[in-house]
């Protein structure tokens, strides 16, 4: 019951809708540094975890412990958004879902998508469930990553999983004519979902850049928790 409530409260579900969140292959959360990309990605991943499915979180910037802390904080933010929740029940739900997440921290300079393939292949011949969603945080979209994205697309196809990326944009760069930052513009055909987070006064404005008929819808989020205001 609590899990269902938490899914309904989830900011990603409130913005994109639960069914839409993992439809397609690739999704991106875009923002400048420090606005809340990773926090929002964690909320997206929590939806899968709360559905008792596996999530693989790959970070090229955070250490493993930090990733785990971010999930813990994300879950607490979600619980707090409900108001009062029996701490024992919240803790039970966390114990129940937290082991469905695997955090892997790779060196950015030596990252290679084959490492993810190796990990997913390690499930072969076991009774374990393969992750249903992959979060890739910290991939540098300012460099040419066409090959990496192609390989990741193949992985998504082969293992039937959805990949959410963080995409860092820069203050000084103007948006392209279609309203996309250059980092997304370069690979826009690969992405089925895209959300832009921008600081507006003391809030975060989340704008749907890509998601069929929801495109251009805007929402305001609390900067400390990324919960809808």
């Amino acid at each position: 019951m609590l899990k269902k409530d938490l899914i309904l409260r989830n900011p990603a579900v409130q913005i994109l809708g639960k069914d839409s969140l993992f439809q397609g292959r690739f999704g991106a959360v875009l923002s400048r540094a420090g606005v809340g990309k990773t926090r929002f990605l964690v909320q997206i991943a929590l939806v899968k975890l709360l559905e008792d499915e596996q999530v693989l979180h790959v970070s090229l910037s955070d250490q493993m412990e930090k990733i785990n802390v971010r999930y813990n904080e994300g879950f607490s933010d979600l619980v707090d958004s409900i108001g009062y929740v029996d701490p024992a029940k919240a803790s039970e739900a966390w114990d129940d879902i937290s082991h469905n997440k695997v955090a892997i921290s790779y060196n950015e300079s030596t990252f290679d998508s084959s490492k993810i393939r190796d990990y997913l292949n390690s499930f072969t011949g076991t009774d374990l469930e393969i992750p249903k969603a992959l979060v890739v945080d910290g991939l540098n979209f300012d460099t040419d990553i066409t090959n990496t994205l192609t390989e990741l697309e193949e992985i998504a196809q082969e293992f039937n999983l959805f990949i959410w990326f963080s995409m860092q944009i820069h203050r000084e760069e103007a948006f392209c004519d279609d309203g996309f930052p250059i980092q997304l513009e370069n690979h826009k055909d690969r992405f089925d979902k895209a959300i832009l987070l921008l600081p507006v006064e003391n809030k975060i404005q989340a704008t749907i850049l890509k998601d069929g008929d929801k495109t251009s819808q805007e929402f305001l989020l609390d900067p400390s928790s990324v919960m809808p205001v």
Partner: protein
Amino acid sequence: MLRDLQKVRNIGISAHIDSGKTTLTERILFYTDRIHKINEVRGKEGSGAYMDSMELEKERGITIASAATHCEWDQNAVNIIDTPGHVDFTVEVERSLRVLDGVILVLCSVSGVQSQSITVDQQMKRYEVPCIAFVNKCDRSGANPERVKDQLREKLGHNAVLLQIPIGLEEKHEGMVDLVSMKAYFFEGDSGQEVVEKDIPPEVMDDAQAAREIMLDEVSLFSDELTEAVLEETEITEEMIMEAVRTGTISRQLTPVFLGSAYKNKGVQPLLDAVIQYLPSPLDIENEALDLDKEEESVILESDFDKPTVALAFKLEDGQYGQLTYIRVYQGCINKGDTLINTRDGKKIKAGRLIRMHSSEMEDVEAIPAGHIGAMFGVDCASGDTFVNPGINYTMMPMHVMEPVISLSLSPADNKSQINMSKALNRFTKEDPTFKTYVDKETGETIIQGMGELHLEVYVERMKREYQAQVSTGQPIVAYRETITQKAVFNYTHKKQTGGAGQFGRVAGFIEPCDEEFEFVNKITGGRIPTQYIPACEQGFSNSMDKGPKLEFPVTGIKVTIDDGAFHAVDSSEMAFKSAARGAFLEAYAKAKPVIKEPIMKVVIETPNEFQGACMGLINQRRGIIQGSQEEGVMSVIESFVPLSEMFGFSTVLRSGTQGKAQYTMEFNSYKQVPQSVADEIMKKKLEEKNQSK
């Protein structure tokens, strides 16, 4: 023994396996003139390190038992305990930390903060032991002391501050800059015994100045005088900095970080200086005991030689002259011939031969005063016992001891081996509280229990070598537990009339899951069960938990509440209510959805990056849950939770899967319910065993 306690340090050297603790201890003994030749842990001539006195330790190149030694540095007395790094022997670390005043936390400059460093850190926190860190192996490829300092901050939450920076790293590691004196130190002579102080080389001057700024920033928080000097830009003396570092370290709010390479004889002497300058003397530490005559009221012990003696036996060893009992004296003084009382059993003992240990050698002493570590011969006691002078009844706080998770059956080859095995087991169980033994009533086999495969393997080997007990071992057995998952009521009447006095007792109530091992709640009102039979009811329930009705594993996590019952004026007895409780337990247990729980181990693998995927595969194949993985340079660390039953023989599999390049550590984490398919397997196996024994 030195009576000026300001000049005494009781320190331990702790770290992850293979970080170089024993190598460092060896160098310390060499530079303090306690030994005249350095022996390496895995020496070519097979001599092994001096501190690894046990034959097995020399062979395997690991420390199994904590070794105590004593040395002198700059007119200070330093008692050192070198502790094992392997988690299976963690109780050795636990009991050493219990009696130490400070610790040198040794970290590998390549691997950084590893799993056992985390365990040791938790133990240090438990006993509030201050520490300084030594980043060892700076000569190794991939050495990065700055990163290790950052890990101390991030992974362990220490306020770690570099007090030295390296002059060169990896094969170019030459020495270090001391940021307090702003001097460079180099180590010359065949064994690095000559410490040469020089001006800071120009190529590291900028780094040194920047690092000193950072250090002063952190350290000044512990001294107003230093803060003032920094702010007003007046002269900052070495004494000011050292005093601030000492204050921060003793209050556990600062961890000064030193560096070097013990193997290459670099950085050990400055580390010894740091031990004296920054780690506490016995006078700086507050120790507490409990006064058993005043309802365990807390008493602060004073390092006063004239006060009544309070000493703790923290380790036992079977020496050639009988039992050797290691003690730390907290108050008063133990003199040869003194009468002491063991507060656990009230028995009087006479302090006969008193000694100061130096690995396997010993020096006779006349007295062991407060603040010192020593040993007594010929005293019959158990590890953790408190000795006091007649007239007081104090006990030291007990140590944290974990329950064993793995067992092994033993079969002696002949009668002589049987006798020797008994002697050995009697000794080992006294020495090590995590090592237990019992005889299985059904099979008649002797079962030993411990913290891991290596733990038991070492004891079996010691049995053979030290006691000539030829024993063969069975397959390792996992310590499964049974528990219930829901509430269930009981209402059981025990009635027997077989001539003579009958037996009658009725108990009613319910059982439910709980976090404690066993809880008993009496809610009987109106004398339905007379008060004198309540303890019998509790015992009846408690005894039922020894062997679960489901699969005969011990039952844990049950709260029993009795709220109704009946008795008979003639036929009721303690025996009758014990039997009623047993019957009630069986009745309710079946309805309470019992399940089997298994020990889950935290397994940390360190592997070259290219084998990361393969190692994850090995974990996945073992019902393991990977918590995460971290690339650190060329190595990856994989953290996971794996059922103990799946870990047997893992070292061989890991070796072959990674060309021998990966290593792992494993420690008990928790008990978790086994999946149904596995529970069915266990049940099947148990049934087969039962049929076979019939």
